[in-house]
């Protein structure tokens, strides 16, 4: 027996636990076309729903005539607000504490707003019927600019007229939503007034959209015989959807089953609750048949949640040597027609107050004003924790602008202001406690790897060559150093509609030593079935290959708050580890009983418990699992199961250092990314292969946002970028290869030290690409220009600087 025992390392490798680039278990079905996405759900008698949408951005709905549509063969129902009103479903609460029309109730507030819901035999008939619904509109003045909105006499939200108090405090104007203030404005202004140097800049972080490849959709099936509603859908938070559906419909929560099947990417788009989900439920209740609703790409871009749209003004104070002494930030936030931000309730501007970034800034102030306009509602975190992308873009631009003001190197300016390793846990001026970090080490490693000094030398030579007329290409060196704040979050801070943002894991060990674990999260491509099994493998000593992970079915999974804001690993990952530890604690007692020693005399060793000092006397976790079900153990209940609900003590703070080298053709405005280096520190690394994949993906979405992706409107409120013809999604042809690197600074409060990584590359990537473009023109006097830096805008910048003369 003894000599057959494989050595520790081998046993450990066999588990495929933490740190292993385990191949993904999801891939077998996805590579064979056997994924099950919501549009693949097909039920007997299923009907198709489709929306009549408003062509106007602001209009009164005078009448809706359904007769012609209802007369069409195959049309089963046409629902309007009037039909939903008796059920009190014509409006629904938003996650941000506002309410939103499900179907136009008297007026429309943005182009593409849902006016009527047609239910028909198949998608073609439904689309035909949409054309036959006659809606009479009376146009109203359109406001697409938040500053204009705050001055306008036009009342956008008539339902709120006269209400001077909103869910987040006083409203200053009928189109104003909230003011949110953090930090000390008086002290900040004093510092600014007395500062040696102050740099001021205004910047617009344009509106964009997460645009996952799969659009949003749902299938509702109301079984009138047993009173049960089953709802499949693209939900990043299935349990929250169940609770909301119950509150809205009056159906008791145990009679609702919400299933998130495979999800074709989310990136924040699938956090919110959309009218289509509600309408599919109502339509199924009304018709008694299952109803499917899947939006098309245009509907997706025009109506389901946008991201960003922040007008930010900053003032940064510093000494002549570059030591930052204070920061002031004001944001005018365009939320569109309804405040449907997917933020935890207490943070109407998300975690925008992480805008002091990675720097030790003693005093700061942040003020955010939310405003209604005639644009689509929302404000989701597009591949970032709530509003962190905006915050990091803001500070990383302010640093660049300050560097220009001081005539200093931007890398050095960052270095002298970083929070130092020994300052962690660090209390920021705007109220966060950063858990851990080692910024200087990461920064130095990044700069050394890319030969930063060499790059600056080359850049200076290039400028000279350009001036001599030897080249028409300028070179930009983009820098960014970011600190993310993820893992929402401590229940004391974070809740969604009153539900604390904990997460959960339940594990059942089977007698033969395999297991199933269920979590309250849901993968949208992150590979949870692979990585959560790895966390558990290391905790409970069974191979990851013997552990099935299930998510997304509210009938089986414990209550959880879902997957977004990089919260799965920090919160559900922690719950998994804690549940694993409960299993291990019971396993220890079983092992001690089997080995006939005291509980304290056995110790855990990779995949077994062994008697201390006598490693040849052991019971493997497999033996223990079997015994748990097949032996009466005095004082212990049979079975081996555990559940853990994890309320994190703090958020986690991943960070990273990125460098982008770009060549820009001043005559065509085309940027060419020569090199992109990304160093990420996400604490303990669970699966390096998956981390790398997340970084590639996040950087590519960052490239898109920085270099061209935009939801833009004309003055009439028409969406100008509503299809993939105008909305930029990079292809393989436009995307470079990325170099990835890492340091490891574990989170001190997370059970396994992990911090989350899915969104870091987007958060850090956007300012890095943008800084690269802007840096190319620094030598010619550019201070700041707004994204997206598409070819035309870059050309325009060059032109404005006189580089075409």
């Amino acid at each position: 027996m003894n000599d057959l025992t494989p050595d520790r390392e081998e046993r450990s490798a066999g588990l495929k636990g933490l740190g292993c680039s385990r191949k993904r278990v999801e891939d077998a079905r996805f590579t064979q076309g056997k994924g099950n996405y919501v549009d693949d759900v097909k039920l007997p008698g299923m009907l198709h729903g489709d929306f009549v949408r408003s062509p106007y951005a602001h209009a009164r709905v005078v009448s809706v005539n359904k007769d012609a549509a209802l007369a069409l063969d195959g049309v089963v129902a046409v629902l309007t607000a009037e039909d939903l009103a008796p059920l009190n479903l014509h409006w629904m609460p938003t996650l941000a504490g506002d309410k939103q029309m499900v179907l136009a109730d008297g007026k429309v507030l943005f182009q593409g707003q849902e006016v009527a819901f047609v239910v028909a035999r198949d998608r073609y008939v439904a689309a035909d019927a949409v054309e036959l619904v006659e809606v009479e509109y009376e146009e109203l003045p359109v406001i697409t600019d938040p500053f204009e909105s705050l001055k306008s006499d036009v009342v956008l939200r008539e339902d709120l007229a006269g209400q001077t108090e909103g869910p987040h405090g006083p409203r200053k104007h009928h189109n104003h939503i909230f003011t949110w203030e953090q930090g000390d404005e008086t002290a900040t202004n004093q510092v600014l007034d007395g500062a040696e140097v102050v740099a001021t800049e205004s910047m617009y972080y344009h509106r964009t959209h997460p645009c996952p490849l799969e659009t949003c959709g749902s299938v509702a099936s109301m079984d009138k015989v047993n009173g049960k509603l089953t709802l499949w859908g693209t939900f990043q938070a299935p349990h929250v959807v169940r609770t909301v559906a119950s509150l809205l419909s009056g159906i008791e929560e145990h009679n609702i089953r919400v299933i998130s099947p495979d999800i074709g990417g989310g990136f924040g788009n699938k956090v919110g609750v959309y009218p289509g989900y509600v309408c599919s439920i109502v339509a199924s209740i009304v018709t008694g048949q299952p109803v499917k609703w899947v939006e098309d790409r245009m509907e997706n871009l025009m109506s389901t949640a946008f991201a960003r749209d922040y007008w930010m003004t900053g003032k940064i104070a510093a000494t002549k040597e570059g030591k930052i002494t204070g920061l002031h930030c004001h944001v005018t936030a365009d939320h569109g027609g309804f405040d449907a931000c997917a933020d935890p309730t207490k943070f109407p501007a998300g975690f925008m107050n992480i805008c002091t970034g990675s720097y030790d800034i003693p005093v700061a102030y942040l003020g955010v004003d939310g405003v209604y306009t005639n644009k689509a509602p929302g404000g989701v975190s597009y591949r970032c924790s709530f509003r962190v992308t905006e915050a990091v873009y803001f500070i990383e631009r302010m640093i660049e602008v300050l560097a220009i003001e001081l005539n200093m190197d931007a890398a050095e300016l960052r270095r002298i202001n970083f929070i130092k390793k020994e300052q962690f846990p660090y209390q920021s001026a705007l109220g966060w406690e950063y858990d851990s970090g080692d910024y200087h080490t990461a920064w130095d490693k990044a700069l050394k790897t890319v030969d930063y000094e060499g790059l600056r030398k080359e850049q200076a030579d290039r400028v000279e060559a350009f001036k001599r007329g030897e080249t028409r290409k300028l070179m930009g060196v983009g820098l960014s150093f970011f600190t993310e704040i993820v893992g929402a979050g401590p229940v004391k801070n974070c809740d969604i509609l009153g539900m604390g943002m904990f997460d959960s894991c339940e594990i059942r060990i089977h007698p033969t030593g395999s297991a199933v674990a269920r979590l309250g999260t849901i993968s949208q491509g992150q590979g949870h079935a692979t990585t959560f099994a790895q966390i558990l493998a290391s905790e409970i000593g069974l191979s990851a290959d013997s552990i099935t992970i299930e998510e997304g079915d509210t009938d089986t999974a414990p209550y959880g708050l879902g997957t977004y804001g990089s919260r799965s690993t920090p919160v559900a990952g922690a719950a998994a580890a804690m549940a694993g530890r409960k299993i291990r604690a019971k396993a220890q007692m079983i092992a001690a009983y089997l080995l006939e020693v005291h509980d304290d005399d056995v110790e855990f060793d990779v995949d077994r418990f062994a008697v201390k000092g006598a490693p040849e006397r052991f019971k493997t976790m497999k033996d223990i699992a079997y015994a748990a079900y097949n032996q009466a153990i005095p004082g212990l209940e049979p079975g081996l199961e555990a559940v853990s609900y994890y309320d994190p003590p703090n958020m986690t703070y991943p960070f990273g250092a990125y460098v982008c080298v770009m060549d820009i053709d001043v005559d065509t405005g085309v940027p060419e990314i020569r090199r992109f280096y990304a160093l990420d520190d996400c604490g303990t690394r669970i699966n390096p292969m998956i981390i790398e994949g997340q970084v590639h993906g996040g950087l590519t979405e960052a490239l898109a946002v920085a270099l061209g992706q935009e939801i833009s409107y004309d003055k009439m409120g028409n969406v100008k970028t509503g299809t993939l013809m105008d909305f930029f999604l990079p292809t393989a042809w436009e995307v470079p290869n990325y170099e990835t690197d890492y340091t490891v600074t574990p989170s001190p409060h997370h059970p396994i030290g992990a911090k989350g990584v899915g969104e870091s590359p987007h958060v850090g990537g956007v300012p890095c690409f943008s800084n690269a473009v802007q840096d190319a023109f620094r030598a010619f006097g550019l201070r700041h220009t707004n994204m997206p830096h598409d070819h035309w805008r870059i050309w325009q910048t060059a032109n404005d600087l006189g580089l075409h003369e």
Partner: protein
Amino acid sequence: MSDKMHIKLNVNGEDHEFLAEPRDLLIYALREKLNITGPHVGCDTSHCGACTVTVDGKSVKSCTMFVAQANGAEITTIEGIGQPDALHVLQESFREHHGLQCGFCTPGMITRATKLLEENANPTEEEVRFGMAGNICRCTGYQNIVKSILAVASELNSAKEAAQ
């Protein structure tokens, strides 16, 4: 609505006959009439390639072809490219090199890649990037997709060389 047409297709080696309207798109015929749900719908403008299938030997975005135009054709979808016990090398390679995340683009990607490697058995990285530019992925950033395809190309080529 006009009269239905009698359509015959051979999909993944199996013959199918059914009625369809002239306006029915190939993608919906596959997905909704034949329950072949590997090819997906990601856009309405022929940009994303999630719906890519092979029609009579050519890569086709099946959202951009009426089923009537495909009448009588031989069609291969992701379901016909490999079998659970005999995966196509590209299917293996995408898994090996982490060339997919949410999986929504993957059927179109792999289907297109099979053709790409037939069109050009020994592509450069540039040629792979250009040849795959009709297929959008929102998750992977393409780096590992390109790697997956190049790995297969070099594997096939060294096998060929060894055989010669």
